[in-house]
């Protein structure tokens, strides 16, 4: 029997923000309090000019892995875009407690506005060898080695890797997270652990669409479109997914967790291990036909520097399951993996970046089987130069993939796309 109850994360997030606002409004403001001033507000934005060929983007109802599409015939299409604009509010409630709230507009193939992140940070004065910090609210877990800043922008390229594109679209829960870091001689160890809720649907988009490469983040409470189902598949799953959703009855009644260990060595090498499990019940479903997807993954991150070249690599392997068991298999039982290697090197005032990556999914569900497997690779070259608050980027990206789902809309399962894009970012 279907349990037709759902719980959106909007209530807890709004309560968290209201609590923060009430704290800020207290007349007995702590030393260091700065709720609203020029120092607590900043804006960032990106305008783009993209020339893309190939199939229709997944944002337009296709299976294209980039956020822009070619023409109807797959020829080169050039479009200017206001890619994104962010209003960032970082109030400081005391020296140890601060907030981060980011409102975002995303343009291009699909215009939308909403909340990117909203969380409180607690960071008391560290000790001589040990430090502690905590965060609570709506935030991305510390997985990406490509993103930085309050607006979670991609540092060295325009388009993040497939791994971090997926983190940006489906892995952003409401969490309570604690981090302890310790200096052991010349080694630094950092351990992070978190409990979270409102991420029960993580894995939906990755299963039905496959991997993608784009810098669009899922905004809180917004949905993401799924590729069109074939007629026989309609009725099982909504034609969209809300990544920020508690499908179970009651908020955080069955919280998920993530944990991370990072080891910074005396040589310029950092190793990070990350584990995520949303602990969702695959048989949960709400009245909109959005299901609980039991998704877990392990992640390895490496950052190193050699002769002035920065080397970053990430690898992920995981599994997601949804629906009832039939013949010993859930409707969906999908294993996924991806890895990338990126090199960045400064040449004069220009930062150059090169990235190569591979990705695939393996479906073994009783409903969603191996005919929907997705596999591919991508190569990216980018250059970046900053002029004060303005940063210019130029990127060439090629992605090639094989996904039999494309036959459902009458196109060849093997597709490739190439895009040349110029971005101008403003941060002020």
């Amino acid at each position: 029997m279907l349990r037709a109850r759902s719980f959106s994360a909007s209530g807890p997030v709004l309560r968290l923000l209201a609590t923060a606002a009430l704290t800020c409004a207290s007349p007995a403001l702590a030393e260091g309090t700065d709720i609203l001033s020029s120092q607590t507000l900043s804006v960032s934005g990106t305008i783009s000019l993209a020339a893309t060929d190939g199939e229709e983007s997944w944002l337009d109802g296709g299976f294209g892995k980039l956020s822009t599409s070619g023409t109807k015939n797959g020829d080169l299409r050039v479009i200017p875009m206001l890619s994104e604009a962010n209003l960032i509010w970082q109030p400081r409630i005391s020296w140890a407690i601060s907030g981060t709230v980011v409102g975002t507009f995303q343009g291009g193939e699909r215009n939308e506005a909403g909340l990117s992140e909203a969380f409180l940070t607690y960071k008391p004065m560290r000790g001589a060898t040990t430090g502690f910090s905590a965060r609570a609210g709506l935030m991305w877990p510390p997985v990406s080695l490509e993103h930085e800043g309050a607006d979670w922008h991609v540092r060295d390229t325009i388009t993040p890797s497939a791994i971090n594109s997926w983190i940006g679209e489906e892995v952003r829960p409401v969490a309570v997270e604690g981090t302890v870091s310790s200096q052991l001689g010349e080694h630094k160890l950092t351990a992070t652990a978190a409990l979270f809720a409102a991420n029960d649907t993580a894995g939906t988009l990755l299963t039905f669409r496959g991997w993608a490469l784009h810098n669009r983040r899922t905004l809180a409470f917004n949905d993401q479109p799924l590729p069109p189902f074939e007629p026989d598949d309609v009725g099982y799953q909504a034609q969209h997914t809300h990544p920020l959703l508690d499908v179970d009855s009651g908020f955080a009644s069955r919280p998920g967790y993530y944990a991370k260990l990072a080891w910074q060595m005396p040589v310029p090498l950092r190793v990070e291990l990350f584990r995520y499990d949303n602990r969702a019940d695959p048989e949960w479903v709400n009245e909109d036909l959005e299901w609980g997807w039991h998704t877990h993954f392990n992640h390895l991150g490496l950052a190193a520097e050699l002769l002035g070249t920065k080397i970053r690599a990430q690898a992920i392997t995981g599994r997601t399951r949804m629906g009832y068991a039939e013949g010993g298999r859930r409707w969906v039982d999908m294993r996924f993996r991806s890895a990338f290697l990126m090199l960045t090197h400064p040449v004069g005032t220009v930062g150059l970046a090169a990235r190569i990556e591979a990705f695939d999914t393996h479906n073994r569900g009783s409903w969603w089987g191996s005919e929907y497997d997705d596999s591919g690779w991508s190569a990216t070259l980018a250059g970046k130069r900053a002029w004060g608050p303005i940063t210019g980027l130029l990127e060439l990206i090629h992605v090639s993939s094989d996904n039999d789902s494309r036959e459902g809309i009458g196109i060849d399962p093997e597709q490739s796309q190439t895009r040349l894009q110029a971005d101008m970012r403003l941060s002020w």
Partner: protein
Amino acid sequence: MLALAAAQASAAPLTVRVVDSNGRPVNDAVVSLRSGPASRPVPTGNYSVSQKDMQFHPFVLVVPVGAKVSFPNLDPTRHHVYSFSPAKQFELKLFARDQSRSVTFDKPGVVALGCNIHDAMTAYLFVTDNQWTAKTGPNGIVRFADAPNSAGKVSVWHPYLRAKANVVERQLVASERNASFTVALRSPPMAMSDGY
């Protein structure tokens, strides 16, 4: 050099060059000369370590014992400067752009600076009671124009130098007025991904 030496009965310029194992000049190495009884340097002028673009400037600053060092915040964000070093333990909450606080450093030693808000920020104060102390520039050279024309001991300190207490030293004979040090440096630590 911290202070001009009093007229020495016998003085001669001493040049010390510091290079790494690849022969490249080492910037920000602190060179000290001990040769006979040394005068305690007198704090003169203004000493400051600013915070700009989420970094301390300079990365290494040599100051005499008793120096009062200001910490101006030139960033549009707050900084929380601290040190746990035995030579000086302190914390400064710097609220806003152009705000500055000062700390007096009354014991010799190395003071490692950090920011509790921005973990990647690091700098070092070298507090000295030796007038013959200076740091290298990009050319890796320190020149003591009025150094005693006598035997002595020269030491080189750098925060990333591979040696006990990050120091190497050796004796100089009186006739040696050009000294060269080849040092092995560790790579600077990578910033942890604390930008979340």
